[in-house]
């Protein structure tokens, strides 16, 4: 409660041009923004750039923050777009696998990544598989999944953040889950 009051005051002061107040907001949110940006970009340097751009954009548009959503939600939305923008700048969006609902590619990926019988399913190995599959997803699939699964955003919020319809957001999450499944489940359990 106290923190929320402080934050509201910092937002008001920062939008009036108070840099010290904005510094408080940066300190309070930078790490969380980094985490979401790093999960989207899969690259710490890009994530840092994205956070910087997001905070600068937030500063420029602070007056437009109307308080209808939490400040952190507003900031996260800006950060998600900044992360996607950083990837676009480095042409990473196109480098990701093409989006598809085609089962053929899904099964091909499953064969490719299915764990061998001799591999121990240690959490480190699973973590590596997850990381590998996340990096193979398209930026939109990964972002939608990260926002839904790790950030707890609703599909409505994801749609707003990504400028997608709710149906397109759902499809992006479904594709992401299928790709994860292809990495983590043996092929005979995939239906």
């Amino acid at each position: 409660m106290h923190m929320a009051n402080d934050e509201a005051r910092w937002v008001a002061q920062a939008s009036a041009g108070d840099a010290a107040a904005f510094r408080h907001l940066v300190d309070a949110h930078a790490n969380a923004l980094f985490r979401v940006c790093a999960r989207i970009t899969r690259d710490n340097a890009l994530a840092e750039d994205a956070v910087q751009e997001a905070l600068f954009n937030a500063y420029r548009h602070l007056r437009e923050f109307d308080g209808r959503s939490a400040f952190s939600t507003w900031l996260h939305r800006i950060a998600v777009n900044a992360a996607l923008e950083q990837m676009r700048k480095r042409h990473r969006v196109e480098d990701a696998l093409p989006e598809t609902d085609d089962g053929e590619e899904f099964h091909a990926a499953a064969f490719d990544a299915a764990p061998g019988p001799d591999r121990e399913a240690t959490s480190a190995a699973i973590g590596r598989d997850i990381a590998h599959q996340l990096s193979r997803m398209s930026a939109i699939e990964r972002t939608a999944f990260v926002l839904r699964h790790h950030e707890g955003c609703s599909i409505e919020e994801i749609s707003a953040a990504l400028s997608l319809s709710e149906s397109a957001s759902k499809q992006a999450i479904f594709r992401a889950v299928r790709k994860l499944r292809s990495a983590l489940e043996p092929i005979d359990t995939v239906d």
Partner: protein
Amino acid sequence: MHTISDDDLVLYHYRDGLDAARIAQIRDALSASADLRERYASLEGLLARADAEPVPEPGADFSARLWQKLEPRLEMRRVEKRAPWRDALDTLHAWLTPPRLAFAGACAIALAVGIGFHAGRQSASNAPLVASAAADAAGARVLDAYVAAHLRATEGVLMTASNSDSADLLGGNRELAAQLVEANRLYALAAARAGNTQLADFLRQIEPVLISLANPSPSASVQPSEGLREYLKATDLMFQVRAAEARLDRNGTHRT
């Protein structure tokens, strides 16, 4: 018989994107079917394992490093905002959105620049030079600020067109692009009349892109984005739009 798909189970897991009736239906089906329970347990296991990846953490001094880079940019922004004409322009521009009004604004500016240019020629011998220079500078500032806002809208249209696969959004984007085409032409005209041929040429370069976004070929269906992405990549147009925008913002600051 599987009336409940894996996709339904994903939404059920997050309790999101399903109406209450569908949630109740899935819950009942889970109670009734061991097969479905097995599929759901497998999904829950998969999603739980997705948490196995380590949480990315920034370096210890991240916040301080970030602030070191941000502070000079914020200071620059504050200096820009102090420019006395900015508030008036912001208010005027807020007034002139949505785009149809921006188009009207573009007409007015093109007309004003045209009249100013014409009047300047007629009275060149009599008008005091200082007053004329001041009027020119004010006109250029107004034009710069409006074209910068126009380029921001153009950037938004390009980004939406190249990244969105929502038919609704792309439909709205097409309308916006159509409105920007007309404003773009008038801004190019105004820039040319004001003697800013570089800006006029750049705006003319954007026009065909806006026209093609406003009038996609029927075969492009709802996803013309691939070709556009390729084009943006090949021409670096997005970067050029942003650079022009930044240049105009800087010009506005320097002229005050």
